[in-house]
Structure formats: structure tokens, C-alpha cells
């Protein structure tokens, strides 16, 4: 087991903002996960599959925070669980530190288990209600045979302190803590093994904003001080923006756009990224009320079923720019002209790289359309587009 600390490659204490460091800690190529569906008559057999993750490529570098956003059911969690090898990939390759762990068994994974850890979404279900905080955090050390100087209990107390909990809570049970505190316990557990990479699956979605901020700050500090790399999964774009240097946008099992924070938030090219950004409610009166500055895109319906994803570009069913080509050809994830290095987009008809005021609102929702028409907010136009 290598005891190199990650701080060796990334300067401790300095923010790794917008960094594209050279060494990839974790690399994923064409990662695929299909959950089989059984049915049929008279003997049950495989009749189809949920294509939860369908060929994604990504790389997480040492010490960086890589954000993964997307709507519910698009395969974010599945990706996270594939990377931590909680799930067996259907296809593709996962390389950790140059080592292929795509199909490694429990024994083979043992040495790197401690290096990839996970933080979970639900602070209530992620802690065993029957174990004390001490054994929750100490358990992973015990499993991996770690005997830190001063003993495990010592170390657990240290960790509790690190995440901002009272070390005296060692003997308490999870139900005696609030959601935010529980999430800290989860963080301490992940830290116990001194990991190099933490996969955080929506670690703050279940928390109140005030608590969420506490946890985000905590994670951010950890990332900076310990140089831990994060795969940060979230559906809240604002949180991701705050925490991740690089961001990938997922849609229906595929990555549609990936790039550094600045490119994604300020110069998105994929229509879906545009739509996502425009849907985030902002707590500023000006932005919200006066309709200035921000475009307004309303997509119709929900994400299609991953069992029968649309052909070609998966977003085309909800895209206002979709054309015949989109149905036939799957757009590759490439760097478009005018994009920065590392900013890749999968779209045949990319948007202009600006989120500033658009010429038009995109409203695909028939109900909204009807309502807008009824109240005279907009005049009739081609379906899917309403002239302002």
C-alpha cells in the first residue's frame, strides 16, 4: 500500500481552481452499466436492460474536484457506484493509478479499497443505527488492518475533531445527531482510511441550506488541506459550481458536456446545459423578476426512459434545435471550435457560448405554452419557440 500523500503533487493549501493537472488518478473509458430486465413467458428471460450508464469517459486528477450533474435517473449514482466498484460494470474500463480495476474482485481491490472512499446522500440511511460513532468510523480501519500510532480510538477522536464534531461523541449512536452532524460522521468515516479519492454522491442534497453550507465548506477544506480528489455528484448546479473545478453534465446515461467550471457555467455549448442553467432559481430579486440577464428555457416533460433511449442524440426529444440528423447520428463528445481545452461537447448543433440575454425564450411545455397564449404573454409562433 502506497503511503504517498497526495500533497506531494499538489501544493497543499493552494486552491486547485481550474486546474487540469497532468496525472489522472482515476480514468474511465466507455464505462457502461446495463441492468437487465427479466420477463417473458413461460420461462423468465432477459427481455431488455436499463441502460443506466452507457459509455462514458472521464478522468479525475489527483487533488481535484470533479463535479457530475444531471437530472434524476440520468445515471450519476450508478457511475459513482461503478467507480467504487459497488457495481460490476457491463463494459468499459476503469483504471485507478494505472491499475485496471474494471473487474477486480474483493481480494484484488483490497489494497486500493482504502484509497477510494465514498460519502453518501442520505445521512439517515448511511449510518448503521446500531453502531456507535466510534465503531462506524473505526470499522473501516479494522477491516483494512490499519493500526495508526496511538491506537484506533485516538485516530477516531482526531477525525471527529477534523470534521468538527466533539471527540467525546465517540460512544454515541447516530440517532442522537442531527442530519448535518451525521453527514460529518459519514465524512469522518470516509477519511478514516486516508483516501486519495472520495466519491461523494449528493452529499448535501438532503440537508437544509444552512447545514449544507457547513458541509460544503468542510469538504472544501478537506480537499484543499489533504489534497483529496473528489468525484462530486449533485443535481444542484450552484453547489457543484462552488465545489468543483471541473464539471461534467450527464443526460440519460451519457456525458453531454464536460469542461472546467468556467467553461461550463459561463460558456456552455450544449442545449441541455443551457436549459439546466436557466432553470436554476436564483435568490436575487432582479434576476428573478425582471427577466433580465438570464435566458429562460422550459423543457417539456421528463427524461425519457433509459430502457428505450432515443436513437442518435439522446436529448433530441426535448431539444428545440433537434433535426433529422440528431435522430440518426450520435454526436461524439468533442472539443468544439471556440472552446477551451478540455471543454468537450456532444452536440450536432451547439448553442452560442453565452448565457447572457437570449433573443428568445424557449418554451416547450405545452401547458405553459397554452397558459402564455391565454394570458397574452406571447404571440403565436412555431411550436417550441415563442417570440418574445
Amino acid at each position, binding site marked *: 500500500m502506497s503511503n504517498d500523500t497526495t500533497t506531494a503533487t499538489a501544493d497543499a493549501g493552494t486552491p486547485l481552481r481550474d486546474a487540469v493537472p497532468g496525472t489522472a488518478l482515476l480514468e474511465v473509458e466507455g464505462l457502461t452499466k446495463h441492468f437487465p430486465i427479466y420477463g417473458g413467458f413461460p420461462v423468465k428471460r432477459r427481455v431488455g436492460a436499463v441502460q443506466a450508464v452507457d459509455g462514458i469517459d472521464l478522468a479525475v486528477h489527483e487533488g481535484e474536484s470533479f463535479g457530475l450533474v444531471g437530472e434524476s435517473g440520468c445515471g450519476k449514482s450508478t457511475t459513482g457506484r461503478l467507480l*467504487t466498484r459497488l457495481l460490476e460494470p457491463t463494459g468499459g474500463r476503469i483504471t485507478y493509478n494505472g491499475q485496471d480495476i474494471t473487474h477486480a474482485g474483493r481480494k484484488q481491490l483490497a489494497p486500493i479499497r482504502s484509497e477510494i472512499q465514498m460519502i*453518501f446522500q442520505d445521512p439517515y440511511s448511511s449510518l*448503521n443505527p446500531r453502531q*456507535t460513532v466510534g465503531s462506524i468510523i473505526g470499522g473501516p480501519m479494522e*477491516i*483494512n488492518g490499519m493500526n495508526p500510532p496511538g491506537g484506533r480510538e485516538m485516530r477516531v477522536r482526531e477525525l471527529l475533531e477534523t470534521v468538527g464534531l466533539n471527540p467525546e461523541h465517540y*460512544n454515541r449512536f447516530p440517532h442522537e445527531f442531527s442530519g448535518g452532524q451525521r453527514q460529518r460522521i459519514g465524512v469522518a468515516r470516509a477519511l478514516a482510511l486516508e483516501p486519495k479519492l472520495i466519491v461523494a454522491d449528493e452529499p448535501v442534497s438532503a440537508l437544509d441550506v444552512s447545514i449544507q453550507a457547513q458541509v460544503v465548506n468542510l469538504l472544501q477544506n478537506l480537499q484543499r488541506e489533504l489534497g483529496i480528489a473528489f468525484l462530486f455528484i449533485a443535481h444542484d448546479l450552484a453547489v457543484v459550481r462552488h465545489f468543483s473545478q471541473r464539471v461534467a453534465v450527464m443526460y440519460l446515461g451519457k456525458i453531454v458536456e464536460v469542461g472546467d467550471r468556467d467553461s461550463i457555467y459561463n460558456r456552455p455549448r450544449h442545449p441541455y446545459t443551457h436549459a439546466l442553467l436557466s432553470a436554476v432559481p436564483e435568490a436575487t430579486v432582479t434576476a428573478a423578476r425582471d427577466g433580465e440577464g438570464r435566458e429562460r428555457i422550459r423543457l417539456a416533460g421528463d427524461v425519457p426512459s433509459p430502457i428505450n433511449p432515443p436513437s442518435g442524440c439522446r436529448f433530441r426529444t426535448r431539444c428545440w434545435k433537434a433535426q433529422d440528423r440528431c435522430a440518426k447520428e450520435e454526436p461524439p463528445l468533442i472539443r468544439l471550435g471556440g472552446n477551451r481545452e478540455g471543454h468537450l461537447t456532444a452536440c450536432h448543433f451547439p448553442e452560442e457560448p453565452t448565457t447572457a440575454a437570449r433573443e428568445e425564450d424557449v418554451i416547450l411545455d405545452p401547458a405553459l405554452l397554452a397558459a402564455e397564449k391565454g394570458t397574452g404573454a406571447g404571440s403565436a409562433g412555431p411550436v417550441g419557440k415563442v417570440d418574445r
Partner: protein
Amino acid sequence: MTVSPQPASVRTLDTEPDTEPVLNKGGQGSELVGRSPGQLMWRRFKRDRTGMVSAVVVLMFFVVGLLAPVISWLYGKDPYTLYGQESLDLLDDFSFPTGKFGGMSGEHWFGIEPGLGRDIFIQLVYGIRNSLLIGLAVTAATVVTGILVGVTAGYMGGKTDYWLGRLIDFLLAFPSTLFFVAFMPVVVALFVSPEDETPTYVRVLALFLVLWFLGWMGLARLMRGETLSLREREFIEAAKVSGAPPWRIIRKELLPNLVTPILVQSTYMLPAAVTAEAGLSFLGVGLLEPTPDWGRMFALAGKVYENDPTYMFFPGVAMVIFVVCFNLLGDSLRDAFDPKAGR
């Protein structure tokens, strides 16, 4: 940033609390020891009067069962002596007790048994002992099997789950009472060569096997369901991510969380096992004379109640109390474990 473990309860609406309850109580100095969910349950349970009374009564049954030999020694009677035959005036020509109230006397507290003339009190004590022991053994075995199969199926999933599920379906389709009646003799025959006496323990073993064989599926299903839902809980994944082997996950993560349903279920299963045993004895395939047996007393009571109503009273009332208290205990336990599942 501590939370008081147990907020002091407020009695009246108007009383403004005068202590600062939330923060940093005992933050320094003595080590904070939290209350485990088990302890909380116990506290909640202690407040439930019905539950406590039932628990005491149930405990008494166990004590009586365990101490049967001591009671017998103190009482100076044993369950095998045919008192009514030794002195022929205790029973009349039709083998009914000659005395009033089924022959109740200072000598024979609950009277003597019609027919063989044994002492009812000590018979009942030993009957309870035997029934309880069998019930306990059956329950224990059923619970262990149920957990084993249920947790395996739930945790392993896939083919294992499928086939264990089919096994359960198969066994559930057995008509259970009929099976008991039909196969008690078979099971006995399997263990004893026809040349030897059937020792009581073989009958007990057969009873045990038969009740166990068709008894565990319900619990297994329950355990499977619980395991399936627990398996989805993220702390299991957390353990996996830190490389815990399956056995450790089952032992340390799953089982402690299954204790609750197991305990509640067992309290319901034990009286069921005891009454099932009694039912088998009624049908003539349970324990045989002269082994004292609660169920057989029950069955005899139903036959002689006209001539000897007293005889029905003791085993019958004891059985009703026993079953009622066990069920109440189960209800209370369930409430204590899960305060939301309303009564």
C-alpha cells in the same frame, strides 16, 4: 455542537423551561455515553404497564418451567405417581375424583386427575415445563433457520434468492397440520428401530423436527424482506466500500438491525409453537403418556369438563393467560421498538 440525548420532557404548556437544554451539556469532563436504540427501547418498554405485567407473567411461566423439579421437591409430589391408584378411595369406580372440586385438597392443591389419578398441580407444572421447552427449542430453531435462509436469500440475491424462494413456496404449500399428523409417526419411525422403546426424547425430537420443518418459512420471508430493504441502505454500501467481507457485513451491519423484528416475531412464535404442540397432542401425535403434557391435559379437559369442571379450569386458564400475555408482550415490544406502529 452537541444535542442533549434525551430532552427533558415538559409537563405543562405554560412552564417555560429554565435550563438551557440544547448546548454543551457535559461537553467536558466525563465521557459522553450515548443511549443505544436498544436502551431507548427498554426505556420506552418500561413505561408500558401492560407490557411489563405481561413480561412478568411470561417470566413466571418460564420460572415455573425451569424450577419444576424444585417445585416438585417442595410440594412433595411428582408427576408420575398414580396417587389415585395407590389409594383406591381417591377415585371412584369410574375413575373420577371422589372429592369435591376435582379432589382439591391440601394434599392435592389442584385436585387429582380423572383416570390415572395423578396430581394436577405438579402435572401442570411439568406440562408447562415440557411444552415450554419444546416451544422454546422450536422457536429457537425456527428463528435461526429463518434468519439463515432469509438473510442469505436477501443478501445474496440472484439465483440463490430465487431458489430459496422456491423452496419456501414449496414448503408453504404443504398442508401443515396434515403434514404434522401424517409424518409424526414417520419421523418417529425414522429414529427408532421397531425393536426398541421409543424414548421420550425421540418423540420430543420428532415433534421438534416436524414443527421446525414447516415453521421457519414465514420468518425467512420476513427476514428476506428486511434484508432486502436493509441492503439498499447506504451503510451497507459504506461497509462494502471499505472492503468488508460479506460475513462481516451480515454479522456487524445486518444482524444487529434485524434484532428488532426477530425479537418481536419470536414472542409471537413461541405461544404459537406451544399451542401447535398442544394441538398435535390433541390429535394424538404429540407426547404420549406418561410424559406430562399441557396440550394433552387441555384435550382431556374438554372431554371431562361435565363431570370434572375443575380439571378444565387450571390447564385451560393457564393456557389462556400464557397466550394472552405472550401476545401482549409481543405487542408491547413492537410498540417499544417502533413507536409509530400504533396500537
